[in-house]
C-alpha cells in the first residue's frame, strides 16, 4: 500500500473507532442499564467463542449463499425485464404502477404467503430474497436504460451499424453501468431482507442466529450477528465497487 492508500485507510478507520468509543461512552454514562448493552470487548470475545465453538462460519456461509443466490437470480431476471421496460416507453407506462405496487410490499408481510406456497425450506427463503432483489434491481435498470440518449445510437446508424451491431456495440456498453448499479442496490436490499427471510424456520444463518439469541435474551450474540451482517455486506459492496471502477474506467465521475 502506498502513502495515499494508507492515509485513506486510516481516515476510513476513524469513524469506526469513534463508534466504538461512543458505544463505551453510552455504557459508562449510566443512562442505560449496563446489562442491556454488552461492551465491545465482550462482543468480540463472544465472536471468537462463536467462531471456534459454535460454527459461526457455517451461519455466515449459509446466509451469504442465500443472499448470493437470491441476488443472482433476481438480477438475472431484473436485467432483461428492466431493460425492456426502460427501452419501450409503452411497456413502462403499462408496468410501472404494478412494479411499484409490489416493490412497496415489505417482504416480512409476504412471509405467511410464501410459507403457504413454497413451504418452509431453503426455497422459501430464496423466494423472499429473490423478490427483494428483483424489484429493487428492476427499477434501477429501467430508470437507467430509459435515460440512455438516442444520440449514440444515431451516430452508430450513420456509420452503418445494423440492429445487431447497435445492440452489441452501443446498447450493451451503455447498459453495463446500470446492471452494476442494480447489482449493488439489490445486494444491499437482500442483506437487509436476510433476517426476515430466515424468520422462516431457518436452522442456520446469521438471521436465524439472531432470532434464536433473542428468544434467550443473549444480547452479545445478537450484536455479533448484526455486526457480521453489516461487515459482510460492506465487504461485498467494496468488492463490487472495485469491479465497477475497473469495468467503467471510461466514466466521468465526480469521485475517483
Amino acid at each position, binding site marked *: 500500500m502506498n502513502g495515499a492508500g494508507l492515509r485513506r485507510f486510516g481516515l476510513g478507520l476513524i469513524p469506526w473507532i469513534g463508534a466504538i468509543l461512543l458505544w463505551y461512552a453510552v455504557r459508562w454514562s449510566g443512562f442505560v442499564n449496563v446489562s442491556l448493552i454488552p461492551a465491545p470487548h465482550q462482543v468480540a470475545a463472544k465472536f471468537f467463542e462463536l467462531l471456534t465453538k459454535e460454527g459461526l462460519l457455517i451461519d455466515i456461509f449459509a446466509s451469504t449463499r442465500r443472499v448470493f443466490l437470491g441476488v443472482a437470480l433476481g438480477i438475472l431476471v431484473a436485467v432483461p425485464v428492466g431493460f425492456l421496460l426502460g427501452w419501450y416507453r409503452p411497456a413502462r407506462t403499462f408496468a410501472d404502477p404494478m412494479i411499484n405496487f409490489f416493490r412497496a410490499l415489505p417482504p416480512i408481510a409476504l412471509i405467511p404467503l410464501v410459507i403457504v406456497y413454497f413451504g418452509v425450506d431453503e426455497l422459501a427463503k430464496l423466494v423472499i430474497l429473490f423478490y427483494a432483489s428483483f424489484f429493487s434491481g428492476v427499477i434501477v435498470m429501467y430508470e437507467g436504460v430509459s435515460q440512455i440518449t438516442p*444520440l*449514440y445510437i*444515431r451516430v*452508430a*446508424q*450513420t*456509420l452503418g451499424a445494423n440492429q445487431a451491431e447497435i445492440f452489441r456495440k452501443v446498447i450493451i*456498453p*451503455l447498459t453495463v453501468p446500470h446492471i452494476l448499479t442494480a447489482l449493488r442496490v439489490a445486494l444491499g436490499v437482500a442483506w437487509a431482507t436476510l433476517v426476515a427471510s430466515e424468520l422462516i424456520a431457518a436452522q442456520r444463518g446469521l438471521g436465524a442466529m439472531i432470532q434464536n439469541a433473542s428468544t434467550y435474551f443473549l444480547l452479545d450474540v445478537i450484536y455479533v450477528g448484526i455486526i457480521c451482517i453489516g461487515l459482510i455486506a460492506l465487504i461485498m459492496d467494496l468488492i463490487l465497487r472495485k469491479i465497477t471502477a475497473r469495468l467503467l474506467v*471510461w466514466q466521468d465521475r465526480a469521485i475517483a
Partner: protein
Amino acid sequence: MTKRAQFDKVSLSFDTQKGRLNVVEDVSYDINDGDFIAVIGPSGCGKTTMMSMLAGFQKPTTGNVLFDGRPVAGPGPERGVIFQEYGVFPWLTVKQNIAFGLTLNANHVPTAERDAISDHYLGLMGLSDFANSYPKHLSGGMRQRLAIARAYAVKPQFLLMDEPFGALDAQTRSNMQNLLLKVLETEGKTVMLITHSVEEAIYLASRIVVVTARPARIKEIIDVPFAYPRDESIQERSEFAELRSHIRQLVMDEYRAQQAQMRPVSFSE
C-alpha cells in the same frame, strides 16, 4: 450533373405542449453531386432539423426529402453525419472511436487495414498522443476533432456536418477547413455544412443557403463564384468581401427578426 439530394416543398412542425411549432417551412433546393452547400441562419431557426431529415432521423410533415431519387427512409453509411453534440462514444478510447465505423459489416474494411486507417486519421486530427485516452480526458475541441475523424474514416460519399468546427480555436479551425477542402479534392464528396460563420461558408461552399428565423424558410441561395481548389488567398479578394457583407446583412436581418419574435415572450413573465 446528377441530383444527389432534394428538398421538395419540405415543411416540418413539432407537436409541443404549447401547440404546433413550425420549424421548417416550404423549403426547396437541390444538392447536386459534388456540391458543397453551406446553410447559415440564426440559432434555433431549424437548421439541424433540416439536416436531420436528410440524415434520416426526422420525417417531413409535408413535402419530400429525396436522396438519390428516393425518399429518405432512415440513416445510412453513405450519408456520414457529424453531429452538433459530437456524440463521441465515452466507453471507447480515442482510437477505438475512430475505428468504430471500420469494424462494422456495412463498411467492408479488412481487419488488417483498420489499424492503419485509424492511425492515419489520428494523425490528421492531431490526436495521436491521445490514442488510448478516453473521451472524458479530451477538451471540447478535441472531442469535436474526434467526431470529425470518426466520420471521415468510413469515407462517406455525402457528408452532413452540423457546425463541425464550432468549438475550435481560429488556427485549428482554419487547419480543419483546409483539410476538409483537401479531402474533398481527393475523394470528391458532396457536403452539406451548417455554420454560423459567414467567412467559413464563403471559403468552403459552392452554394450558400441563407435561411430565415424560425420557421426556417429559404431567404436566399447564393452561388459562390470561386473555383476549387481554393486556398486562403481568396479571402483577400474583393468579391469575397462583397459577398461577406451581403450575407452578413441577410443574417443580421434574420437575427433581428428573431429577437423581435422572442422579446414579448422573454419579458412578459
